[in-house]
């Protein structure tokens, strides 16, 4: 491994930029993601920064049971994120639709039908600890030695 690659690994492990997108949830999971920013959980001490800008994001947190308004937009948003990138489904909604997956509703779960999901954090809502450990455990597997694996 070159020195440049190990330097990239070191920098990437301490600078994970997160964008979150709510594709039609009840806002419960949004609040849990925001709780990660608060001093009690303090996501920034692990080098995770929430920017909410897909152009500079590494990790996309997808929240909510996919509503029809997001049909084209989520795909476009996913393409805007530069490689290496990873999407994490937060909560039950992107996995199964949770309470909204009933007959005669418009939601279209799971989100993995629309964009590739690398990790899922079940729970309604999940604890901030669970969100934090999911991001921390999925990030190295995707970002470590990315250039080496791409060749």
């Amino acid at each position: 491994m070159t020195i440049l690659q190990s330097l990239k690994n070191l920098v990437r492990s301490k600078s994970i930029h997160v964008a979150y997108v709510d594709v039609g949830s009840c806002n419960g999971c949004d609040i849990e993601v925001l709780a990660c920013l608060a001093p009690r959980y303090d996501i920034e001490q692990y080098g995770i920064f929430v920017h909410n800008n897909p152009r500079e994001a590494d990790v996309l947190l997808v929240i909510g049971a996919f509503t029809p308004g997001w049909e084209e937009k989520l795909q476009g948003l996913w393409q805007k994120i530069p490689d290496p990138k990873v999407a994490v489904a937060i909560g039950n909604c992107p996995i199964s639709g949770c309470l909204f997956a009933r007959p005669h509703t418009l939601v279209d779960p799971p989100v993995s039908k629309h964009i590739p999901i690398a990790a899922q954090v079940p729970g309604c809502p999940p604890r901030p600890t669970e969100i934090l450990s999911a991001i921390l455990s999925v990030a190295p597997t995707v970002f470590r030695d990315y250039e080496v694996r791409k060749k």
Partner: protein
Amino acid sequence: MPLSIVYYAKEFFRWEWARKFLAARTAPLVIPPHFRNYPEMTGKTCTHQLFCMMVCPAPGAIDVVSTAEGWMPRIHVGHCIRCGLCVEACPNGVLTSGRILESMFNDNTCLSFSFRIDVDTKKCMGCGNCAVACPVNKLIDAQMSHGGKASTDDLLLKVSEGKCLVLHVEKCTGCKTCENHCPNEAIQVARLLEAVHAPEDVV
């Protein structure tokens, strides 16, 4: 003057202070033991009363499956919302989660189910599908004829004089089989759930 500068420099540029300030990192907070997590088995025997499935608010979160050790509730992660109602509703204490069983024991509370069967006599045409399909009736009178007529009055449902009669509503287990077999949607089962305090005083 220079001495005090040295003093302040020594005070503020301590190595461990700088290390803690620049690279502060605590382990992710552990989930406390009292957290109401996904229900787990206690090892007690499930008697297939299905109260957990009846009370569950999330679609597809729990089902009771037949395994080699008998009936066993199964929680589906990704559907379960960890409300803990199945733990409270189970009459046998098969499931456990956080402090729910402990606090139910301390507070002497439980969830009790009762069922009410309403028959719309205007819609009912006395076909007897409900009485024949009813699994409780099947245990009491296995020989019941196709019209739902029977000589015994111990039954839950029975057809008499062209109308469906509810005889012993306390025997109902809330399975809603009658509701699913009625061609006219004339029979409806209501599941009534109440939280009961101090059950031995009430009974």
